[in-house]
């Protein structure tokens, strides 16, 4: 039998957090054989990134990591290795592609110098490598500094940098999360093809079931530091055993299933939101001496009827968040009109955790919108409890600070804040993009049930076709600062999806939206 490149046995890691030891990995065992791509799937906090860091010997020293068990990488033991050994291993045996390419690159060195640093190759070979990862005009790119590169180019450079050292193992830790959604597919594809071509093994760490399914030979599912399931990709996807995996797979499948088109709302009442001819630009420093205008929205038109749920689709950077902020009155348009019926709409933000102020208790934040109403203490109490109940938040959590809550609980708290005084219009800014599939679907269902209960209109902004199809009555597609397509979800999704087989298609907005 062939020896595995990476063999992890009985690995337990505990890190100190705020003075308390905290077990992040427990009895983890996994093997990666030569030429194999193994996916590590888990939600945030499952310990998947700690696993990657442990393999690289890069656990944060400040958290006083306690590691037991064994990690054998091409014959060398990592647990307890000296700094010099680890440095040698990191240079020659294992390389990392991290989440955020901009922080993986040195801002003060040109790309050429950084690539030279990574492996002693001739310039000609460095250019070849850049070409191999799909960078156009490698000669120009090599002269540049990281800040002049686009996100996609940066990640490609990082991948080239990792692969040109010809490592035995590539650890890719969520290599696509910091990228435009349009790019994510291509980067995943690139990792797959280049790993295959080089015959390297790879550990692909992700929270995205689909990305894992697309490139991995085997999948290991992590939850709360424990391996709850592992096996060949098809087996994990088709016959999941552990309830957690079952829920992940089921949730994604539910999202992917075509939705019955909800009855179209009759537009008789004045719309909850009407944006007509809206333009918005931001000032941009193009060089040290000159400034330019970067126009995000140009003659943007959108109408959300009373009680209607409109999905707004677009890739990252297309101006979706600007639409939300304009609609909420946080920004004012340069030209055009934004009309709202009723009071200020409420927003559900992309990242629930960071949308809560860390030093204020959940209850105080949720009750913030009750303050102008000057309620009596008992009435106030009743409203808070009601909001907690409606969003499925335990009452006891009210006195906690946001740091003590899980991601899902933060999501519910953020929702509770928006509906404690039900708004006419709820604006959702990619509320599911940082959640794993099972959390995402419960959040979507919760928003759906609150919407019917309070008859709220919803503007739901997303890049995810499946999510948009799941929640929206009507879809608009945003590209180049204006709406380029509009209609019922089934029609719009039909037009966006490439004609080839539907089930295998990545559920993200395809490329041709990129340019108007």
């Amino acid at each position, binding site marked *: 039998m062939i020896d595995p490149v990476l063999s992890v046995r009985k690995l337990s890691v505990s890190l*100190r957090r*705020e*003075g308390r030891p905290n077990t992040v990995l427990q009895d983890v065992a996994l093997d990666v054989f030569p030429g194999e791509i193994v996916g590590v799937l888990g939600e945030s906090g499952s310990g998947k990134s700690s696993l990657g860091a442990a393999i690289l010997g890069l656990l944060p020293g400040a958290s006083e990591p306690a590691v037991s068990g064994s990690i054998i990488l091409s014959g060398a033991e990592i647990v307890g290795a000296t700094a010099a050994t680890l440095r040698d291993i990191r240079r020659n045996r294992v390389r990392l592609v991290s989440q955020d390419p901009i922080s993986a690159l040195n801002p003060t060195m040109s790309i050429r110098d950084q690539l030279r640093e990574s492996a002693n190759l001739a310039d000609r070979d460095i250019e070849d490598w850049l070409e191999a990862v799909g960078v156009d005009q490698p000669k120009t790119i090599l002269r540049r500094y990281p800040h002049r590169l686009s996100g996609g180019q940066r990640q490609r450079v990082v991948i080239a940098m990792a692969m040109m050292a010809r490592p035995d193992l590539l650890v890719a830790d969520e290599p696509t999360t910091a990228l435009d959604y349009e790019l994510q597919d291509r980067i995943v594809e690139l990792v797959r093809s280049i790993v295959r071509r080089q015959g390297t093994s790879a550990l692909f760490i992700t929270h995205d079931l689909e990305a894992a399914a697309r490139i991995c030979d085997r999948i290991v599912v992590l939850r709360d530091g424990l391996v709850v399931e592992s096996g060949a990709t098809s087996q994990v996807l088709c016959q999941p055993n552990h309830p957690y995996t079952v829920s992940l797979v089921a949730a994604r499948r539910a999202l992917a299933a075509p939705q019955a088109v909800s009855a179209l709302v009759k537009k008789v009442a004045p719309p909850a939101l009407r944006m007509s001819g809206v333009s918005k630009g931001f000032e941009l420093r193009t060089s040290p001496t000159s400034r330019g205008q970067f126009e995000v929205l140009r003659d943007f038109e959108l109408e959300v009827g009373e009680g209607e749920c409109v999905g707004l689709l677009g890739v990252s950077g297309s101006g979706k968040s600007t639409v939300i*902020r304009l609609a*909420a009155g*946080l920004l004012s348009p340069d030209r055009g009109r934004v009309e709202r019926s009723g009071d*200020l709409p*409420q*927003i559900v*933000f*992309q*990242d629930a955790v*960071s*949308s*809560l*102020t*860390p*030093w*204020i208790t959940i209850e105080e*934040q949720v009750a*913030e*919108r009750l*303050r*102008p109403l000057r309620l009596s203490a008992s009435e106030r109490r009743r409203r808070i409890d009601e909001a907690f109940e409606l969003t499925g938040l335990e009452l006891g959590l009210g006195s906690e*600070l946001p740091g003590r809550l899980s991601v899902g609980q933060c999501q519910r708290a*953020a929702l509770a*804040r*928006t509906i404690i005084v039900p708004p006419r219009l709820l604006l959702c800014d990619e509320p599911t993009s940082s959640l794993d599939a099972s959390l995402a679907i419960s959040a979507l269902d919760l928003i759906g049930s609150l919407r019917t209960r309070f008859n709220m209109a919803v503007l739901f902004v997303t890049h995810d076709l499946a999510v948009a199809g799941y929640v929206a009555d009507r879809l608009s597609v945003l590209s180049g600062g204006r709406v380029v397509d509009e209609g019922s979800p089934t029609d719009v999704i039909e037009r966006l999806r490439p004609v080839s087989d539907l089930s295998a298609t990545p559920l993200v907005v395809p490329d041709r939206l990129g340019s108007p």
Partner: protein
Amino acid sequence: MNLIALRESLRPLTFTERFGLCGMLVLTVVAASAHWLTPYNPQSRVAPGYLSPSMVHLFGTDEIGRDLFSRVLLGIQFTWLPALALVIVCLVLGTLVGVLPSLIDDRLDVITKAFIDFFLILPGTLVALAVIATLGPGLVHTMIAIGVAWWPWYARIARDEVRRLRVRPHIEAARAAGVGRVRMTVRYILPGALPALLVAATLDVSNVIMTISLMSFLGLGQPAPAPELGAMTSRALDSLTEFWWLPIMPAAAIFLICFLSNLAGDGLRAVLRGS
């Protein structure tokens, strides 16, 4: 923040950080009660001059026979309390100016920034000299002279912190929830800006002490008999080779104060990071 949370946030402190925080506390108590702690009257002759340190006179006596230990104790009071007061006043003043735009109107930012920058570019020492030339020497005047050039740093930090926090999602969320300006500033923004300000202030105490000592050295501090540590050091500097304790003891006290306040700054940073 409740008590349990405070206790938990204190736990991860290292020994040196605890040492600094406790030391600072002890120092303040000693400084405040220096009058009762001095074994001899620090202002009058109690023994022959130039006695070397002994059990009777712990730090020896100075050129006219005053007990040096008593004088250093009182010197700690004369140096530590003004420095602390100066930093606190500057901190409060600077923070107020820094958060003014967020409190009243964002358009004020241009004016505030110009105002802060104007004070920042003033040559601190020259202004201090001018202030003292106008007002005459004395403790309060020294403090005013230093403070004029000192508060803008805190205003600058406060302003930058406010601007950093304002674009964070949780502040935007609070804005969308209709939180008013005052409440937003006091409850949502200030607690986030406070750690940076407090840490800067704690680390600054030693700078203020050095500056006060420098002013005394230049003869711009308190008049001669006052037991001011910087002045005592500089006045006795020429007897270093013969009567080493005369300049060394007050200098050691300055060192101890600066050292402890730096450790305390680290400790405070650790506490605030924990919470």
